[in-house]
Each structure stands twice: as C-alpha cells, then as structure tokens.
C-alpha cells in the first residue's frame, strides 16, 4: 500500500472509529444514536441557513489549521495560534472602527492589520527560539494569556470607554455580504471563505513549489543537516513562525470583520486556535487536508448545536466524539499497524 494512500486512509478510519465509539457511548447512555446523527446532519446541512453557518465556522478553522500545520511542517509547535488570533481580531476591529476610508482601501487595510498583528505576536517566540533556544511551546502558551489580557485592556481603554465591547466596525471594513445573507437566509457566511482558500493555496505553493519552502521543510526535518547544507536555520525558524502567525492573525480577522463585526472582552479563549491544532493534525498538516478537516470540524461544531434541540442529546457528547476522533488520529500508529498487517496478509 502506498504511503500516500495510507495518509488518506488513516484520518478517514480515525473519523469512522470516533463516530463508532460515539455511537456506542450514545446508546450506552440511553440516547437514540440514529436520531442523534440525523440531528447532527440536519443541524449542519438540513437547511441552507445552517450550511451558511457551517461555512462561517469553517473559515477561521481553515486559517487556524493552516497556521498550526505550517509551523508543524517546519518543525515548530505553534500552540499560540489562539493568542495570535485574538490580537489579529482586535487589530482588524481597531482599523475597522477608527478609520474612515472607501471600501477598496479600508477592508484590505483591516485584513492586513490583522495579519501583521498575528505575525508580530508570533515573531516573539520565533525570535526567542532562534536566538536563545527558548522552547516555542512554553513561550506561545504564555503569550496566549498575555494576548488575552492585553487585548481585554485595549478594548476597555482604547476601543471603548470602559465598556465591555467595541463599536461595530464601519461597513467599509466588513467582510459580510448581503449577497450571501440573502442566499443563506441570514446566516453569517461572509467573503472570508475565499481568503481562507487562497491562503491554503499560498501555503501549498510556498511549501511545495519554492526554494524557501524547501528550506523551511528541511529545517523541520533536521536542523543540523540544514545548517551543514548552508541554510540559515535561525532566519528560517523566525520566518516560519511569522508566516504561521500571519495565518492565525487572518483567522482573527475572519471573526472580527466577518462573523462578529466587533470585539468584546473575553473571559476565556475562543477555542478556535486550539481546535486548529486538531484540524491540522487530522489534515496531516497538508493544505488540502486542513481544508477538508476544517469542513468536518465546522460541520460537527455547528451541527452539534442542533442535537440537544432535535434529539435531546447534550452537546457535550459531540465534544466527546470530536475528542475521540482526535484521539484516534493521534494514535494513528495503531491504525497504521493494522493496515500493515492486513495488507501483508493480502500480499501473501
């Protein structure tokens, strides 16, 4: 069996196993599993409105997944996507509320601000890693909390007058579209999905088709060999984190300019950045894989909201199913081993 084929099969089997165990759990806890999955399906695709909401949810997931995947491909664990997303969100909204420009400048400027903010936030761990060998996991986790509290303070002091939320952004900076709203009966689907898909193509292009991408991946495989081959390892580490942070910042722009149109004090993390880790993992850290995994996660997340209403199943259970899928993806070694055994038997 080819390794490419195996890379496709493993996530699919992991998802099926997750669903299977989820079914068993539902039956054991006395819920109607069939009704549960029907409700999940209807909640995601049963109505054009919900499908629009799925797209809305998928958009930041793609970007957060790309952020994690990009760093991962170059040998870095960017756990700080959440924090980079939050600063991107606030930066986008800040541009959205405080400038008065025609749409053709305003919207790109707001998106760009988010990208730059995310990139800067990711530059810190990249620099520390390259210069002082400080492990990026620790720095990024800490920077998540720093981002959360700094942005809360920023919202209270700069973006509002001691209030818990900012003004709504000007329509010239909004990604929302009356066209999609009309198409999907007022879902919050917005133009951002195209930005997300373009970013997926960009990531694929950088990593697979450019010399720089080859270098970045080489550093991920083996730092010492890369250095010996004459590559600038430090520069590549920083660059990788900055690109990763750019994607994360854009994910924040999707929330700030598309879904919400404002920013508010957060008591905790949005969770999108952390789900991005799962999306990247399920998508095998490839651009197309991330897009597909984001679609799956987005559908599960939005469909799950319908489960308590239609089938009386608590949405915690859907969280359990998602967790199970991640568990099986993470333990892909077991699945790999099984596939190997089966295909060996077939060969005999």
């Amino acid at each position, binding site marked *: *069996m*080819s390794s490419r*084929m195996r890379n*496709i*099969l493993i996530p*699919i089997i992991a998802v099926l196993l997750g669903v299977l165990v989820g079914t068993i759990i539902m039956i054991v806890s006395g819920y109607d599993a069939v009704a549960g999955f*029907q409700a999940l*399906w*209807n*909640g995601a*695709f*049963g*109505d054009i*409105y*919900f499908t629009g*909401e799925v797209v809305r*949810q998928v958009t930041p997931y793609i970007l957060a997944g790309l952020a994690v995947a990009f760093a991962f491909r170059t040998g870095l664990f960017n756990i700080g996507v959440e924090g980079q997303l939050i600063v991107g969100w606030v930066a986008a909204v800040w541009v959205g509320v405080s400038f008065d420009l025609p749409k053709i400048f305003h919207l790109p400027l707001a998106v760009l601000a988010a990208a730059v903010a995310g990139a800067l936030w990711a530059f810190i761990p990249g620099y520390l890693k390259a210069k002082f060998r400080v492990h990026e996991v620790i720095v990024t986790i800490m920077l998540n909390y720093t981002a959360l*509290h700094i942005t*809360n303070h920023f919202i*209270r002091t700069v973006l509002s007058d*001691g209030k*818990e*939320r900012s003004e709504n952004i000007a329509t010239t900076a909004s990604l929302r579209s009356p066209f999609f709203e009309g198409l999907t009966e*007022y*879902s*919050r689907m917005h133009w951002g999905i195209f930005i997300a898909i373009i970013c997926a193509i960009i990531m694929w292009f950088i990593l697979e088709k450019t010399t720089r991408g080859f270098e970045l991946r080489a550093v991920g495989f083996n730092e010492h060999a890369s250095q010996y081959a004459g590559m600038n390892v430090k520069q590549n580490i920083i660059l990788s984190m900055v690109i990763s942070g750019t994607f994360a910042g854009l994910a924040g722009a999707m*929330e700030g300019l598309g*879904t*919400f149109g*404002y920013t*508010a*004090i*957060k*008591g*905790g993390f*949005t*969770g999108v950045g952390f789900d991005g880790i799962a999306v990247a993992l399920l998508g095998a850290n490839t651009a197309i894989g991330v897009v597909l995994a984001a679609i799956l996660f987005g559908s599960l997340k*939005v469909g799950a*909201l*319908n489960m*308590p*209403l*239609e089938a*009386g199943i608590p*949405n915690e259970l859907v969280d359990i199913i998602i967790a199970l899928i991640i568990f099986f993806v993470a333990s892909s070694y077991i699945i790999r081993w099984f596939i190997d055994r089966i295909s060996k038997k077939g060969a005999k």
Partner: protein
Amino acid sequence: MKKRKFGLTMSFLLAAGTILGACGGGDNEAEKEGTTDTGEQTEETFKVAMVTDVGGIDDKSFNQSAWKGIQEFGEANGLEKGQDGYNYLQSQSDADYTTNLNSLARQDFDLIFGIGFMMQESINEIAGQQTEAHFGMVDAVVEKENVASILFKEQEASFLAGVAAGLTTESNKIGFIGGMQSDVIERFEAGFQAGVKAVNPDATIDVQYAEAFDKAEIGQSIASRMYSSGVDVVFHAAGATGNGLFKEARDLKAKDPSKNYWAIGVDSDQVAEGVVEIDGTEHNIILTSALKRVDVAVNDLSTKAKEGNFPGGETTVYGLAEDGVGLAEINDAVTVKADIETKVQEYSDKIKSGDLVVPGTLEELETFSAE
C-alpha cells in the same frame, strides 16, 4: 491494483454519503409533516425557549434560575420539554449565540429568551431579521418592536446583602468579587457598598474582578487572598466563578471550624453550596444570598406573551417592590441574626416605599447617604 482499491474506497464513501444525504432529506420532510400535523391538532400550543450564555444551564446561578422559570411556566401550562413545548440551548462560545437564537426562531418558538447582557448584539441583529418571532432580553435593553427587555434593580438586593455583611463582620473587612466589569455588575457593587456603609461605616471593602463568569479557579484564588488578609465576609456577583469562593470558604471552614468564613451567594439561593460536614455536625458557610429572581421575570413575561400581551419594545424593571429581587434566609449560625433581620426589614420597607433610593452606579454611590 492500488488504484483500483483506492477507487473502490472512494466510490464506497461516495455511496455512503449519498445514502446518508438521502436519509437526511427524507427525515426532513417527515419532520416537516410531523410539525404541521401537531400544529393543526394543538394550534394554541405556546412554545417558549431560552439560550444560555457561556456559563451553561447548570451554573447554579443566573442561567439555571432562568431555566427554572421556564420549567415552572411549562409545567403550569401543561407543556412538555422538547421541540413542541419548552426547551433551552447552551452556548459554548460567543459565536454560538446568533446560531442558537436563530435555530430556535426557525423552530417556530413563540418566545425566545436571551439570557445575559452578552447576547444583546445577537438579539438586536436577529430580531431585525426574524421579525415574526418574539424575543425576551434579560439584563440588557434592545430597542426593537419584537423584543421585550428585562432589567433588575440588582442594587436593591445587594444593598440588603451589604446590610447583612456589615452587621456580621467582626474584622470590619469585607470582600466583593465581581464577574466582569459591566453595568449589571456595577449595580451589584454599588448597592453592596452602600448597604455596608449604611450599617457599618468603619468597614472596608476589598473589590476584585475576576474578568470571567465561568472560571471557578480564579474565584477561588481571589477568595483565598481575601480570607487570608482578614476578610470574613465575601459577596460574589460572578456567576459560576463564585463557585470557587464557596469551595475556598468550605475548605477553610473544614480546617478551622471555630473561625468564621462567610460567603454570600447571588442570583439563586445558593445555600446548598455551603454545606460542610465537620466531625458529623453540619456547618454552612453561606450567610445569605442576594436573590435576582430571573425565574419570576421569565415566567411573568412568558405568561404575558401567552395571553397576547407581549410588551414588545418595552423595558420592564424588576425591583424589590415587584418581588424581582430580594434577600434569602439568613444563616441560623450567625449570632446577630435577629438584628440583621430587623435591619433588613427596615431597609426593605424604605426601599419599597421609595424613601430610600439605592445607588445603581459607583458615581451615585459617592453622593449616597442612608439617612
């Protein structure tokens, strides 16, 4: 060979997808028929639902109280929990508010409550789109024809809690834990401070904000700092964050039962959260609770809407006089219980009659005097 295997898998997946898709579609139709059927049979069925904020339905406080009100309304009107009676949806993040409110509106619920000021923008947006549906906004004001807003005079309940705290404290040090800084929590804080000052001008109040309504661990660490600095009564207006306060007070009480570690609950009567068993005897660290009867308000608005008197575009304010807020029973173990009860009664009467206006903002608090 490999290619064929791959093709087989893909076609299998596609087939499965198609079958599943067909399933989904079929069920949809069946369901739609189902609902129209029941619609014809019981045309009068009034359906009511609520969307929780991120605290969740079992936050032992605000959302839970609202749900209690809906349950009471449902039972009183012979409704069943589910799609055709009364129901709730939980929000796991801010992004879910709009989706949840919208799916309930699409399920033709007659009245949909948004619980908590964080839902203000979502309600505002959806009320503009789903003009046929009726919404109840708790704790914030949305000016739309199809939205009835509900506000509380939290300051009156927390004033009485402040009176109880001011009379109970022996160290003259009192703590206040707020959730997030907002108009609602400011009312709690201002009223509480005014209540303490009215009966015990010497007491100092340590005010801390947790910046979260769903982080019990932060609540606990704040409470721990307060109690160790000599504070002996702590009041919280922080939703599920306050559960950390109770845990800290219970732990401290279990270590040293002779000392007093009082906590004051909020929204619901939280007396059940304060039980500590030490050597077979039961203690309780809950001094009292500042009640915010979301259940009363929710039930009240549902009844009005059912009778066809939905107060759209209006804001109803529930205070002490309307039984919308109040103070729970004082703990029996407090030595000055009788004093507290007389004082609380005295002030309640004054507030109800309008002789005493409790400050609702910190600005008003500065010029407030209980005389």
